[in-house]
C-alpha cells in the first residue's frame, strides 16, 4: 500500500505544501486504492476520477505559481451523497434521485472546493439518511473494512468506511440522530456532530430540518478539526445558520494533544450505560474513564433522567419532519417520474413515482410522521415529543453545571452483521440510544476510538454545551494522545 494513503490529512497537506508530493500524486494514490479495495468495501456510489485529478492539478498549479496553500489544499475527501455537488450525481442513496446531477453546489461543497480539497466522489448512505447501518441504501450495502460481513454504521456508512479503509483521509457525513458518531465508532475513526447551526444546511438534502447537521470524519482528532473549520461558519442561504464566530476547534485539538486535562470536569451520564450495552463496550468505556482520570481530569457522575425518552421523542420528531420534507419528491422538477402515460393524472403519477422511488424505511417514516402530525394525534405524539425535547435540553443544562463535558459510549454495540437487524426496525433504532440526546438538544458531540471489543472498534462519545465544540476536540485529542491508535489494528484489505 502506498505511504501517501497512510498519512493524516494534516501531514498530507504539509507534504504537498513542501513539495514532497504533488496533489495529483496524492489524488492518484487514493484513486488507485479505491480501485483496489472498493469492490469489497463498496463505500462509494460514484467516483469522480477526472474531477479529482483536475482539482489536484489546480492545487499544484497554485503552488507552482508561488501561492501559499490553504491548510488542507490537495487533501482528498469523500462526500456523503446527501450533499449536492454541481454536475456530480447526487442520489441521497435513493432511486427517486437516480441519475440526478444538481445544477448547484451546497455551501459546504463550495467551501471544500475553495479550500483546495479534492473531492474523490460520493459515498453510500442509508436512503435519505434514515438508518444506522447503510443497509437502507437503494443501491447496495457498504461493508465494514474491519470485517466485511459487518455494517459500517449509518447513515454515513460510506463516508466512515472510506476513511477507515484508507480510501480517503477525510470525509463528510451528516448527523440527524447519530449518523456521524455511530459510524465513526464502529469503524474506529473520529467523527464530530457540530452544534446545530454551526454548519450550513444549504444544499444538504433535508431529512429532519431541526436536527440535520453536517460534520467531519477523519482518522485523527486534528484532521477532523481542520475540516470542521473549513465547513463551519455563517451562511445567509440557511436561515438557521448561526451568525457567530467559528469555534476554535483546531487550536483546541492542538492544545488537547499535549495530554493535559487538569482542571477539566468530565460527567459520566448514569442513564447511558448498564443493561442493554455489550460487556466489551462497557469495559472499553470504563478503561477510557481511567485514561481520562490519568490525564488529570476529574470524573463525576451526572444524571439526565429524561434521556430515556429521547428515543421515543426522536422517532416522532424526525419522521414528522421527514414526512413534510420528502413531499418535494413529486416527480415534477427533478428525479424519477413513473406512469406518465397520458392517461394517469398528476396525482396518480406522483403516487406511482413515490411508490417506486422510495424504499421501505423511508415509507415507514413518512407513514409514522404523517400519523403523528394528524389532527387527532398531534398533541399526544408530535406536541408531546417537542416537550420532551425541552426536558432533555434542561437535563443537559443541569449536567453542564456540574461538568465541562459529558461522556458515554457512542453506541451500545460494536458493528453487527449485515442483514442481522433489517427486519426489525426497533432493533435498528436502538443503535442511536446514546447519540440521540445531543441531536435533540442541538449540542455538539464527537466520537473518538477507545479500544476494541471482539476485535471490533468501540467509540467514546464526548458531548459539550451548545457552541462549545472546542471542548469535544480538546478532550478528544487529549484522550487520543494517551491511547494506542485503534486503526493500527485494522486487517489489511488487499488480497
Amino acid at each position, binding site marked *: 500500500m502506498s505511504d501517501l494513503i497512510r498519512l493524516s490529512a494534516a501531514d498530507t497537506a504539509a507534504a504537498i505544501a513542501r513539495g514532497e508530493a504533488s496533489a495529483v500524486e496524492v489524488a492518484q494514490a487514493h484513486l488507485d486504492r479505491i480501485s483496489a479495495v472498493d469492490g469489497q468495501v463498496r463505500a462509494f456510489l460514484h467516483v469522480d476520477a477526472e474531477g479529482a485529478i483536475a482539482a489536484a492539478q489546480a492545487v499544484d498549479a497554485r503552488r507552482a505559481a508561488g501561492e501559499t496553500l490553504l491548510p488542507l489544499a490537495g487533501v482528498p475527501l469523500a462526500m456523503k451523497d446527501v450533499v449536492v455537488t454541481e454536475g456530480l450525481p447526487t442520489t441521497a442513496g435513493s432511486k427517486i434521485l437516480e441519475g*440526478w446531477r*444538481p*445544477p*448547484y453546489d451546497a455551501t459546504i461543497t463550495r467551501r471544500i472546493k475553495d479550500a483546495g480539497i479534492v473531492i474523490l466522489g460520493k459515498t453510500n448512505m442509508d436512503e435519505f439518511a434514515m438508518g444506522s447501518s447503510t443497509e437502507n441504501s437503494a443501491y447496495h450495502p457498504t461493508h465494514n473494512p474491519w470485517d466485511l460481513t459487518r455494517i459500517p454504521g449509518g447513515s454515513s456508512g460510506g463516508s466512515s468506511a472510506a476513511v477507515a479503509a484508507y480510501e480517503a483521509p477525510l470525509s463528510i457525513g451528516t448527523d440527524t440522530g447519530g449518523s456521524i458518531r455511530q459510524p465513526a465508532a464502529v469503524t474506529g475513526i473520529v467523527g464530530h456532530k457540530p452544534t*446545530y*447551526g454551526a454548519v450550513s444546511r444549504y444544499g444538504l438534502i433535508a431529512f429532519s430540518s*431541526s*436536527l440535520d447537521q453536517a460534520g467531519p470524519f477523519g482518522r485523527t482528532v486534528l484532521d477532523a478539526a481542520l475540516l470542521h473549520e473549513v465547513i463551519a461558519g455563517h451562511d*445567509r*442561504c440557511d*436561515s*438557521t445558520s*448561526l451568525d457567530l464566530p467559528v469555534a476554535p476547534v483546531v487550536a483546541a485539538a492542538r492544545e488537547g494533544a499535549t495530554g493535559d486535562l487538569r482542571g477539566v470536569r468530565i460527567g459520566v451520564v448514569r442513564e447511558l450505560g448498564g443493561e442493554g450495552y455489550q460487556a466489551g463496550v462497557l469495559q472499553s468505556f470504563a478503561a477510557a474513564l481511567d485514561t481520562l482520570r490519568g490525564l488529570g481530569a476529574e470524573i463525576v457522575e451526572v444524571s439526565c433522567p*429524561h434521556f430515556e*425518552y429521547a*428515543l*421515543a*421523542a426522536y*422517532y*416522532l420528531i424526525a419522521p414528522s419532519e421527514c414526512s413534510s420534507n420528502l413531499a418535494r419528491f413529486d*416527480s*415534477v*422538477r*427533478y*428525479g*424519477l*417520474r413513473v406512469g*406518465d402515460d*397520458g392517461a*394517469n*393524472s*398528476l*396525482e*396518480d*403519477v406522483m403516487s406511482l413515482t413515490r411508490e417506486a422511488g422510495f424504499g*421501505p424505511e423511508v415509507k*415507514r417514516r413518512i407513514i*409514522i410522521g404523517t*400519523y*403523528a402530525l394528524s389532527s387527532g394525534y398531534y398533541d*399526544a*405524539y408530535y*406536541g*408531546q*415529543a*417537542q*416537550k*420532551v*425535547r*425541552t*426536558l432533555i*435540553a434542561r437535563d443537559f443544562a443541569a449536567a453542564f453545571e456540574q461538568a465541562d463535558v459529558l461522556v458515554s459510549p457512542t453506541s451500545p454495540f460494536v458493528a453487527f452483521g449485515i442483514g442481522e437487524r433489517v*427486519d426489525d*426496525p*426497533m432493533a435498528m*433504532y436502538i443503535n442511536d440510544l446514546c447519540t440521540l440526546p445531543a441531536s435533540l*438538544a*442541538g*449540542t455538539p458531540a464527537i466520537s473518538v476510538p477507545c479500544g476494541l471489543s471482539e476485535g471490533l472498534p468501540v467509540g467514546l462519545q464526548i458531548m459539550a454545551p*451548545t457552541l462549545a465544540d472546542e471542548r469535544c476536540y480538546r478532550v478528544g485529542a487529549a484522550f487520543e494522545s494517551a491511547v494506542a491508535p485503534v486503526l493500527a489494528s485494522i486487517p489489511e484489505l488487499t488480497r
Partner: protein
Amino acid sequence: MFAGQLDVILGAVARVGEVAAADVPPTSHAVAMTNVYRPDEVRPSLPRAAVLAEAPSVEDEKFRVPRILSEEA
C-alpha cells in the same frame, strides 16, 4: 409486514406520553431564532437551461406535468 412493524414502532414512541409535561413549553429548534432575513439584493438565479435539463419532462421551456383535472371537469 408493514402493519405489524408500524404497530411496534407506534407502541414504542407512545412512551413520550409517560412524561408529565403539561406545563413544559415545546422546543421546535435547538437554537431558537426568529425573523432571520438576509439583505434584499437581486442576485442571478440558476440558468433556466441548467434547471430544466434535470426535469423529467419539459415543454416550451417549462416543466411539463400530467393533467391535473379530469375530463369531466
